């Protein structure tokens, strides 16, 4: 009884916190509007046409062109600029931003965008952490092509939004953990923990063995874990960069950040699929908590994922991609993807014990899934109908998240976080329940 009321209380509390942070977010936008005499910071230019690579005076958008707006009034940090472009497909662009601070200092910042992904009627965040008086924006694109920016939007309070965002995200996560902790009987939880501790060294030993077995008799050994994604990236870049008319500098990093997430999910779930069946000799001989096996495969894939991260870092260095502090948030998409994979692994490994078809189906599914996730192609290459289907794909969100923090330097929104957490937690809960329900029967079918 007491436990139930506590859970209800926690749920209500988290909803209230969600609403408060949401309201805070909305009101912060209102404040910024008020500060500018109810002017919204949208700057329009109908004659902003960009042609070729040559610098063109008409290719500037300037905030001072609009006399009713002076950013000086805002007297605040301009943190992010949203571009609303109507670029046609298959164009890539570099945006140069010139800005002047209230003290008269002039700055230039240049940023290559994976434009075709982001600028097609979408918002792009551009962080300028200075007190800005005047902003001019110039867009370059490939010779012979024309593109246009219709509007751009400035949200000076964006950084507050992010704090609210992080805060509510952490709270919601905490609520989930606490609620789960309450749902599970405390004593049985202790029991689980004790068993887990006992078999922790088995877990590490099995992972170590997997690594050892993988690199036995190869000269480069572990180095392959870094080389492999790099070589893969080179091949894919050579083949696909032209197909999608990517800016050649952008494509490798676009690909490898997507593959970083996707390959982890694909590897961990494929390995987990046969993990219980593969452990048949062990399961038949001694008592071992069976969740160890899918967990082991997922953790093993995490190790590989960390090596791939080194590869990603190397690409960043070689191509001199601009670094943002948000890179430090890289564990978050990893955790989301891990929880999701673990849940899926529990489902697959237990179902596969009873129906071996799952294994055959899954290898087909993984291939389909890869093409269904924007890893080698930009989202803008898809027709609108496909994009709405894409939104049912959890991997789309994890990949997006990874690119947001690694490449674009933006903090993913609250909504993005909630969607990611939702997919991960729901999958994990279903996986755990299914696995727990069927695990005693495994031994009779392996």
């Amino acid at each position, binding site marked *: 009884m007491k436990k139930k009321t506590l859970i209800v209380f926690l749920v209500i509390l988290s909803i209230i916190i969600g609403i408060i942070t949401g309201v805070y977010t909305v009101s912060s936008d209102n404040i910024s509007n008020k500060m500018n005499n109810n002017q919204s910071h949208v700057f329009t230019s109908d004659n902003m046409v960009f042609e070729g690579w040559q610098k063109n005076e008409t290719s500037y958008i300037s905030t001072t062109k609009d006399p009713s707006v002076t950013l000086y009034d805002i007297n605040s940090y301009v943190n992010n600029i949203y571009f609303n472009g109507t670029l046609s497909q298959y164009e890539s662009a570099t945006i140069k931003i010139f800005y002047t601070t209230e003290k008269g200092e002039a700055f230039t910042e240049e940023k290559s965008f994976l434009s075709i992904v982001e600028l097609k009627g979408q918002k792009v965040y551009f962080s300028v952490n200075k007190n800005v008086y005047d902003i001019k924006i110039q867009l370059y694109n490939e010779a012979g092509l024309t593109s246009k920016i219709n509007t751009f939007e400035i949200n000076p309070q964006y950084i507050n939004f992010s704090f609210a965002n992080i805060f509510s995200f952490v709270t919601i996560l905490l609520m989930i953990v606490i609620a789960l902790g309450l749902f599970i009987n405390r004593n049985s939880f202790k029991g689980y923990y004790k068993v887990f501790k006992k078999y922790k*060294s*088995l877990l*590490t030993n099995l992972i170590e*063995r997997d690594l050892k077995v993988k690199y036995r008799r190869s000269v480069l050994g572990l180095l392959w874990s870094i080389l492999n994604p790099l070589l893969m990236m080179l091949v894919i870049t050579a083949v696909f960069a032209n197909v999608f008319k990517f800016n050649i500098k952008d494509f490798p990093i676009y690909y490898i950040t997507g593959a970083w997430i996707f390959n982890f999910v694909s590897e961990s779930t494929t390995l987990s699929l046969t993990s219980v069946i593969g452990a048949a*000799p062990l399961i038949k001989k001694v*008592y071992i908590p069976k969740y160890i096996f899918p967990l082991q495969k997922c953790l093993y894939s995490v190790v590989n994922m960390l090596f791939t991260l080194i590869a990603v870092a190397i690409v960043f260095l070689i191509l001199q991609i601009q670094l943002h502090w948000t890179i430090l948030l890289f564990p978050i998409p990893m955790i989301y993807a891990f929880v999701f994979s673990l849940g899926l692994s529990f489902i697959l490994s237990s179902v596969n014990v009873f*129906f071996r078809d799952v294994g055959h189906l899954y290898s087909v599914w993984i291939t389909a899934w890869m093409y269904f996730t924007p890893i080698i192609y930009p989202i803008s290459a898809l027709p609108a109908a496909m994009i709405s289907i894409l939104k049912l794909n959890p991997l789309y969100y994890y990949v997006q998240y990874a690119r947001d923090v690694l490449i674009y330097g933006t903090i993913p929104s609250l909504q993005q976080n909630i969607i990611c957490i939702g997919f991960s937690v729901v999958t994990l809960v279903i996986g755990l329940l299914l696995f727990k329900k069927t695990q005693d029967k495994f*031994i009779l079918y392996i």
Partner: protein
Amino acid sequence: MPDLSDVIIVNNVTMRFNMPKEKVDSIKEYLIKFLKRQLKFEEFVALNNVSLTIKKGEVIGFVGLNGSGKSTLLKIISGILKPSEGTAISIGSISPLIELGAGFDMDLTARENIFLNGSVLGYSKHTMEQKYDEIIEFSELQEFQDVAIKNYSSGMIARLGFSIATITRPEILIVDEILSVGDFLFQRKSEKRIQEMMNGGTTVLIVSHSIDQIERLCDRVVWLDKGKIKATGNTSEICEMYKNTTR
């Protein structure tokens, strides 16, 4: 009322194995069979309503013909199998020597396998580091510790497995026909080790087809026949009865 000194309480345990006439393990087959209502399982009762309590420090022998359910019962007691009906409770740490060398990886060396198998049995890394030399010494494999075990003879592998499994003194030891591994010198040595554990107060459950061994070691004998306990009691009495069975 369970006695405080009871360490194993087996209560009305029935173990049924589903033996599908043909193995159905694809969804399509399953669906077809399910729709046609052909999904008949031949139920096989390996254990039929078995109850048993064992006190701390007892040495129990299990005898019975092949397929009478001895291994199944020991697997249920050690938690490897879950019974279809009934409960099996055991109190204290169990070391099941049902099949030796669980989790051995043939491509790894003895050294690596000792740590791997140790963790399979739930020993911490620290324990294994401490006991490493003792394991090697007992298994007499000093010269072979860095050789991949696929190059071992089967007796050597069994010796290694036995040495690891008996490295700590568990509260309950389950021995399923493994005392006949190794050469006669090692057999003597392993029997001695088990005897030491018995003297130290470990509860021991032994399955053996060597009546000699049972008579030598056990305080009490359980005779299983076709999944039921046919008789239980004094070692010499039951062994005498068992020896006189015919098929």
